[in-house]
């Protein structure tokens, strides 16, 4: 086995456009595809973010005066769907996975370059389709979960478009998952063992297993749902003898693992960033690997904790409470490993590091409320209130989105060959962190006191807290400005980064910035110890590793 160009790997590289035009074309280069995912995802993030802004404006006052209720529901649905399926999932998986995994396994491209490009090019059209549904007869209104019977009884056109685009996005992520599994397991360069791979590979392997096992179930479910809408079958329609709880089981069998599809890659990225900026080896590599796999297995069997209030029988509640509580164990292990990695390190508080540390803090808070939610009596109290909204935003925004920013600060020099402005980056972090906590921390209080989620109107007693939350959202919106400014400024006038500005040891830094099409001039380096910082010294060659 070897890593050189495979026979039909990059067939028509010469015919490909160069310069920035290549990002608008059907390229087969994993690095181009990775950046395509990133840029496309960020554009959708701006759309989803504007929708979030609209939601927060509506909630400044208790009445539904900014937009009618149906529009509020559409905005809410589009916001959730865009953020999950078009921003976090494609970016933490597709963007960084495509860019980094071939470097990490020592290959010149992904296992299936064409499939890879197809997987990406499914995204922009389905995203645009989803957004245009707003202008044709109104978008879907039933939330990103599309629970029937609501999703069957609201106007059909928007819901059908919603289903179609989620199906396409699901297909895209299945193709991506297959590609990652094959690349990591089958395309490793000779001499590189699984247990020597950088942690992000393990995270992506676990994530891809979840994608392949759970996304198809969502696809099947949505196909049945579309039959209910178009052909008036009664799978999930109680008035035709159907059963809505079956939909919930099938939906959460995908959507609980989906939360790990959003955070496991983020775990991996953080595990790459922390050792480099604290100049210490990743603490407890083996336990990290096992905890990832533990999360994968447990993640598949806890879905019904979203259904404690759906009339699930007591034995089921007990089982799913216990199983959910167990996930706290591998997650806790990862947390302590990160802290131990930082402990006593030479920490440089640059933007990448700050965002990663912010992630750790937010994620712990989100995890604690998660364990609380897994307790049936507590969940029955706060289910479908703003407490849940606060919980999962701590996880998906405070977790995944913080990591996306951290990763952009970390890998931007590799992507472009230019440095970002660190001061602007720190400034970006500070407003994001304050804005984020101001926006979501008070929502715990709202939920505990009974403000339901997904409503445009609420009891006036909640107004002050909602206004505080809206101010936080405004800060988060403002915080994208220094970020965007920084990106444009640096691409045009940034300092040259050199090949390895962070003195990192992971393989992507051992080539030029930006890397050549074939990833390395000549041979790919064989990195057996990606985190060999500190005591272990220079002449540590293959011999010692054995």
């Amino acid at each position, binding site marked *: 086995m070897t890593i050189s160009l495979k026979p039909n790997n990059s067939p028509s590289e010469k015919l490909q456009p160069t310069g920035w035009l290549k990002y608008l074309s059907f390229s087969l280069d994993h690095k181009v595809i990775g950046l395509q995912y990133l840029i496309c995802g960020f554009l959708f993030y701006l759309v989803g973010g504007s929708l979030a802004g609209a939601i927060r404006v509506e909630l400044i006052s208790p009445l539904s005066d900014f937009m009618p209720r149906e529009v509020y529901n559409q905005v809410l649905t589009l916001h959730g769907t865009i953020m999950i399926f078009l921003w976090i999932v494609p970016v933490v998986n597709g963007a960084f996975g495509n860019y980094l995994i071939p470097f990490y396994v020592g290959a010149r491209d992904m296992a299936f370059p064409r499939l890879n490009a197809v997987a990406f090019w499914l995204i922009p059209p389905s995203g645009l389709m989803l957004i245009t549904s707003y202008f044709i007869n109104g978008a879907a209104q039933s939330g990103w979960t599309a629970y029937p019977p609501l999703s069957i009884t609201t106007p059909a056109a928007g819901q059908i478009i919603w289903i179609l685009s989620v199906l396409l996005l699901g297909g895209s992520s299945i193709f991506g998952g297959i590609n990652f599994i094959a690349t990591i397991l089958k395309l490793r360069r000779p001499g590189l063992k699984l247990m020597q791979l950088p942690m992000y590979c393990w995270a992506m392997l676990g994530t891809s297993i979840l994608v392949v096992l759970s996304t198809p179930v969502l696809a099947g479910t949505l196909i049945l749902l579309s039959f209910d809408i178009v052909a008036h*079958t009664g799978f999930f329609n109680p008035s035709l003898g159907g*059963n809505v709880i079956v939909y919930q089981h099938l939906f959460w069998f995908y959507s609980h693992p989906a939360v790990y599809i959003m955070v496991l890659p983020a775990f991996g990225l953080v595990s790459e960033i922390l050792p480099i900026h604290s100049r210490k080896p990743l603490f407890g590599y083996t336990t990290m690997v096992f905890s990832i796999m533990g999360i994968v297995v447990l993640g598949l069997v806890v879905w019904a904790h979203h259904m404690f209030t759906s009339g699930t029988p007591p034995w089921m509640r007990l089982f799913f409470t216990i199983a959910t509580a167990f996930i706290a164990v591998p997650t806790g292990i990862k947390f302590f490993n990160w802290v131990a990695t930082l402990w006593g390190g030479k920490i440089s508080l640059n933007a990448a590091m700050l965002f990663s540390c912010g992630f750790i803090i937010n994620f712990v808070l989100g995890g604690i409320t998660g364990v609380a939610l897994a307790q049936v009596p507590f969940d029955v109290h706060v289910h479908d209130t703003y407490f849940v909204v606060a919980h999962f935003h701590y996880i998906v925004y405070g977790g995944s989105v913080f990591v996306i920013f951290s990763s952009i600060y970390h890998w931007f020099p590799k992507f472009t060959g230019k440095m970002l402005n660190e001061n602007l980056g720190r400034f970006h972090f500070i407003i994001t962190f304050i804005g984020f906590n101001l926006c979501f921390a008070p929502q715990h209080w709202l939920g505990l006191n009974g403000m339901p989620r997904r409503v445009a109107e609420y009891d006036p007693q909640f107004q002050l807290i909602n206004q505080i939350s809206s101010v936080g959202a405004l800060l988060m919106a403002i915080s994208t400005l220094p970020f965007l400014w920084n990106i444009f400024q640096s691409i045009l006038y940034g300092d040259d980064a050199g090949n390895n500005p962070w003195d990192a040891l992971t393989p992507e830094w051992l080539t030029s910035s930006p890397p050549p099409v074939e990833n390395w001039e000549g041979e790919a380096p*064989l990195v057996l110890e990606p985190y060999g910082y500190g005591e272990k010294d220079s002449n540590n060659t293959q011999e010692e590793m054995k």
Partner: protein
Amino acid sequence: MTSIVPKEQSSESKKSLSTEEHEDFRMFGLVAFLIADGMTFAGFFAAYLTFKAVNPIGPDAIYELELPLPTLNTVLLLVSSFTFHRAGKFLEKNESKQCQKWLLITGSLGLAFLISQMFEYFTLPFGLTDNLFASTFYALTGFHGLHVTLGSIMIMIIWWQTRVPSGRVNNENKFPFEAVELYWHFVDGIWVVLFIILYLL
């Protein structure tokens, strides 16, 4: 610093992937895809079984479904798995005439399955929207039928590609053949499970 092996030491990595290794990981990707496809069916099966267990879903399979046609269908598919296998044996021996013959038989069996399933649909006393059982029945068999249709089309393409003078599938380039064969066995296996769950339980 780390253990980065000097460039000269790893000269073996200059040669490119051999065809077998290449096929090996393409096959691996296909298996991953089939697992995903199998999970879609698993979701459908789970839905069907739950409906059956907890919902009064109208007339029951036992009273509504006749066994002769689906049994015939099962036989058709099992035989076609065998004939595909025969075709593969001849491909290995480079006897493409024989290989083509067995492929043609396989494809015809697939077609026969589809016709027989159509026939069953027409004779059934219930339609798609009659009740929950009817809907799940058509959804499951229809989704499987879609797989058989795709499979039959691919078999015909393979059959065309194994022609002697200019065909592109032969003993040297077996991957397309083996991929379709694996897919076909998979579709057969799913049918057996479906047959048991839908018609016999």
